[in-house]
């Protein structure tokens, strides 16, 4: 009985990041827009989970979440999927080259991932003849970077709960 409960609990926590990712995509709230700042939660979720527990976050699901986001937000299909996969790629690379993951090393390595993802995002939107507010995207990236440690702590707590 206790074993079954523990298995179910672990399974729920394993599925939590994916559930969160798809909920955000379908709800069209990938960019958490507050009065003074905005945060791209999808980038944070993907970077954290691919880096820490890639088994919980399949690349196929990341791609699918990106496609859903594009359709819900009315962007050309593939744009968000591409930028999310770039973030996943950087996270995967960091996981391979890093021996011990700390919040600071994790936080710093998030910068190139954000820059690369945004470059791909800008470029693909530019080729799709879409106007975007570059200042807004810069502000969004800055605050996504700034708030990363907060989410890092939150996700680490979830991970610990999953492994208890």
């Amino acid at each position: 009985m206790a074993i079954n409960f523990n298995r179910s609990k672990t399974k729920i926590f394993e599925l939590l990041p994916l559930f969160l990712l798809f909920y955000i995509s379908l709800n069209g709230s990938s960019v958490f827009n507050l009065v003074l700042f905005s945060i791209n939660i999808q980038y944070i979720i993907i970077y954290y989970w691919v880096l820490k527990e890639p088994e919980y976050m399949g690349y196929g699901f990341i791609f699918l979440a990106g496609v859903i986001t594009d359709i819900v937000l009315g962007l050309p299909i593939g744009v968000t999927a591409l930028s999310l996969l770039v973030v996943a790629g950087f996270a995967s690379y960091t996981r391979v080259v890093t021996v011990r993951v700390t919040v600071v090393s994790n936080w710093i390595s998030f910068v190139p991932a954000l820059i690369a993802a945004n470059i791909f995002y800008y470029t693909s939107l530019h080729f799709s003849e879409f106007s975007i507010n570059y200042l807004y995207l810069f502000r969004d990236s800055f605050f996504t970077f700034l708030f990363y440690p907060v989410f890092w702590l939150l996700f680490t707590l979830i991970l610990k709960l999953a492994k208890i």
Partner: protein
Amino acid sequence: MDTSRGDVGIAIRSAFLGKGSKQKFSLIVLIIFSIVLIFAERIETKPLNYIRGFLKDTIYRGSLFVSLPTQSFNSIFHTTRNHLNLYTNYENLIVENNKLKNSISKQDFLEMENTQLRKLIEEQISSSANLVSARVLMDQKSPYLNSFIINAGANKGIKNGMAALDGENFIGRIVDVSFFSSRVLLVSDLNSRIPAITEPSGFHAIINGHGINNPTLEYLPINHNVKDGDKIYTSGKEGIFAPGIPIGEVKIENNIINVLLFSDLSQVTFANVKLGDKKNYK
């Protein structure tokens, strides 16, 4: 040096080309597939459009279901706020009502005059049967795209480029049509450019969306005399929208001519799509 370069190469290969223990696809395959999708978005063929339309309709329905809790929360929040502002709104309505009473007689006269003038220039006055009403399914305010989805699409004869109205006021145009749903690009969006005319000054201009703030009136002649309170209508100059659809009024701030829209875009529940002459649309 060689070893370090080799290590980086191995790490990149492992990250992008290798599949993890539980991964079904390698990253590079999905990245290439995403790029192919972006290019495929520009290809307009019937089978591709059908697949895209089906995919979009399905995801819109899913999104509608998932966003129900958020919508309920927003609805409770708006209701509470409306209740708190009830007294202020009541006082404002009394003032507005008095003003309206005074202007009714003047409006009757103008309406009569307008009908006579339209007959005079033999302009086709579109009937209400020319409109398709639809409910707003999703109102996802992306920072990059101000748009919403309505529950009518090609099945109701909607086509790209048609004007979307809130009541009788212009709010945007159709930019993407699936079989059961369409996307309305709002006039406030960064990608929106609407040909307009000012009244009573009578200058042609373009309403330019900016995403977050109010749209502005641009490409006016240098010596224009547009002033606060001037009304703005679609000019019909492009031949896509019918002329004379009310859009908003002018408010000049720091030499920037803002357009205060007649409709509150965040409060639109039903939208009318002006079908017009379908030959004009793709």
